[in-house]
């Protein structure tokens, strides 16, 4: 008898924990739909999804990193670097444009992973350093920002960012596929189990035979690669390797992951939650725009308040 009550109670809390962000999202969307007539327009929704897809790709990597108990502050810079590399590479064809950013950004992630896994340095500080490094590298490549590489409007690479199916941009599909894949890897492979174990209790994980170093290295490499990919997709979408993007993006990525219910201390989290987090933050941004002539200074106040409301709501639901 007691067993059953315990179980249902546990099940109920679990549902609420999982759905905390989803509840907030549903509420937000419902209210926006009613209040702002243009919110639900297909154009707006398509744009929302597209804007969200770049962030989702980055946040996917961040989800894995955070579940291992780490953090990756370099993604914003790496994202910008990826874009510049893709634009530069597009002179040499589609493959170079796509692979160059993946390889270079993957390497930066690999170095992050190696430093974190092999020396016991804090992820926060290692990735903070590579945030600086990636920006520096970007400036070197662009001659201190003087050169912005353009991507020919008729190149196949641009199609990657601008092409659509039923009006939905390719990046949306790419992000969706990656997220589904990420979810499967996280929940249905031993690598995924290792990710959870690493973040849940590092010392125990070692004793249980989890390859800690390998897991961390893979996770940071993936995060770097995904940030690079997001950068490349953005470059394709913007048709140029813009140097000024990605500043502070790491905080957005962390915010959506955490809003999605992933524990910042590691050991627990879902890809679906992250996707919901991305949707939530993009909807909030969109709503602020829908409000129209809101003083630009108030906009950040409103964003801050929204963020607060969401995390508090989630926390309250979790109780």
């Amino acid at each position, binding site marked *: 008898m007691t067993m059953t*009550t315990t179980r249902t109670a546990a099940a109920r809390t679990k549902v609420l924990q999982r759905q905390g962000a989803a509840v907030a999202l549903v509420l937000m969307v419902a209210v926006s739909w009613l209040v702002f007539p243009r919110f639900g327009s297909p154009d707006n929704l398509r744009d929302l999804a597209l804007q969200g897809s770049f962030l989702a790709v980055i946040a996917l990597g961040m989800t894995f990193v955070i579940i291992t108990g780490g953090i990756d502050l370099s993604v914003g810079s790496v994202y910008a670097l990826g874009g510049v590399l893709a634009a530069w590479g597009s002179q040499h064809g589609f493959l170079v444009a796509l692979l160059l950013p993946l390889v270079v950004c993957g390497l930066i992630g690999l170095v992050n992973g190696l430093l974190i896994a092999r020396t016991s340095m804090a992820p926060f500080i290692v990735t903070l350093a590579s945030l600086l490094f990636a920006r520096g590298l970007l400036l070197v490549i662009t001659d201190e920002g003087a050169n912005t590489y353009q991507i020919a409007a008729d190149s196949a690479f641009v199609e990657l960012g601008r092409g659509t199916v039923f009006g939905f941009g390719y990046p949306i599909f790419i992000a969706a596929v990656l997220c589904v894949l990420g979810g499967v890897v996280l*929940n249905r492979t031993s690598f995924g189990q290792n990710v959870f174990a690493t973040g*849940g209790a590092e010392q125990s994980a070692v004793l249980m035979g989890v390859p800690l170093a390998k897991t961390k290295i893979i996770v940071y490499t993936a995060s770097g690669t995904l940030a690079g990919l997001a950068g490349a997709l953005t470059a394709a979408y913007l048709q140029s390797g813009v140097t000024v993007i990605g500043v502070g993006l790491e905080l957005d990525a962390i915010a959506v992951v955490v809003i999605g219910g992933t524990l910042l201390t590691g050991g627990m989290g879902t890809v679906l939650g992250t996707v919901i987090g991305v949707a939530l933050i993009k909807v909030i941004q969109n709503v602020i725009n829908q409000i129209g002539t809101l003083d630009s200074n108030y906009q950040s106040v409103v964003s801050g308040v929204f963020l607060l409301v969401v995390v508090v709501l989630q926390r309250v639901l979790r109780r």
Partner: protein
Amino acid sequence: MPTEPVIEVAGVTKTFAGVRALSDVDFTLHRGEVHALVGENGAGKSTLIKVLTGIHTPDSGHVRRDGRISTIYQEVNLVPLMSVSANLFLGREPRTRFGLIDRARRDADAAELLSGYGITADVRSPLGTLAVGEQQMVALARAVETDADVVIMDEPTSSLEPREVETLLDVVRKLHESGIAIIYVSHRMDELYRICDRVTVLRDGRSVHSGPLRDLPRIELVSLMLGRSVNEIEKHGTTAFGEDHHADTQPVLEARGLTSKPRVNGVDVTIRPGEVVGLAGLLGSGRTETAKAIIGALPLDGGTVLVAGTPVPRNVKAATRAGISMLAEDRKTEGIIPNLSVRENIVLAALPRLSRFGVISRSKQDRIVDTFITRLRIKVSSPEQKVAELSGGNQQKVLLARWLCTEPRILLLDEPTRGIDVGAKAEVQALIDELAREGLAVLLISSELDELLDGADRLVVLRDGAVAGELEGAELTREHVLKAIAAEVMDDADSH
């Protein structure tokens, strides 16, 4: 008689930052034997095991292993946030055709496997929601199920209760029958004599004896461990509790109708000054939760706690101020502050008393710390040593010291002798005795029945978070208690 060695250790020395944990240790494990590894707290047992399994590399000496080793470490080493089944099968999950983890099968397998160990909890819930003892059983199941040649168990029973201990010993016997060699570490002599073939005794990091166990009188074994003469030890029995205590009539602690769903359902406990009340029950019967509810660490759905007739607000701080202290069961996650020194850990709860205007007096601190290190015989290189570096038993003593120096009126002890060696255990028990004599009210939770029977003046038996009976005076016998505790077990047995 055993022949082939599966593990051979020769002249191993291991030093940690100046502390010599093992010096020139020889140790041989033969195929198919159950080998007891004993010694005082801090003698080097866990360290030797970690050398055997390759977690520590020795400074010098040789280790030769032959075959797969599977280990249950002293502190539960599983991942609390992952589900029970994920923990059980981490690294060897059942797969579907597509190479993905088959979660349904994993959960089913886990449930079936664990029922063999008497665990009926939901295998999909996070491991951390299980009681420590249940976690220990999960760890056991995990270790045993990886077809190993050697299974090492570092104090596997320290958080188990009699019924679970039996299950575990059964498992050991089965392993033994199937030819697996076992290293068994425990401070509980009964168990050792029931299942072990041979014994190796460590003292201060040296191996002082190795040989067949059965030929070795119990008292001599203890004398080997402690390095004291047999005569000296003969004075003590299995437990060191004295006579019944004389208790005042006015209860100092009254807990009425404590309810914290779903684990505690209306528990009443009263303790008078100078009285030791034992809390008995099966794993998961709600003993820890009751203690936590009393000290205000659990949100209550109902009930009140009165200290000397005055209601106590429901938070730990207020309870502490009212004179309630609690020694937590899980010292790793709820007890020690790993980064702080032994000194800082000991005085932590007593700080307000040791400071003036928020500034801590160093001399008062040192005096108290020195007193307790000597009185509890805590083995440290200096009070400034990090508490995380101490052996499990010594950490336990540090925590005990932390509570004693707050000079509480009511002491809640959840498994106070868990993982403590025979020598220290007797001391702790004697201490509890002495404290009660001085007028302290003690609530004692223990999975060792003898400890409860000898130590407590009165027993409250819990079942499913409710009081199933109270035993006093002549009723304090093994039979009575088992009957009260095990009503459910009988039911279970009937239904099988």
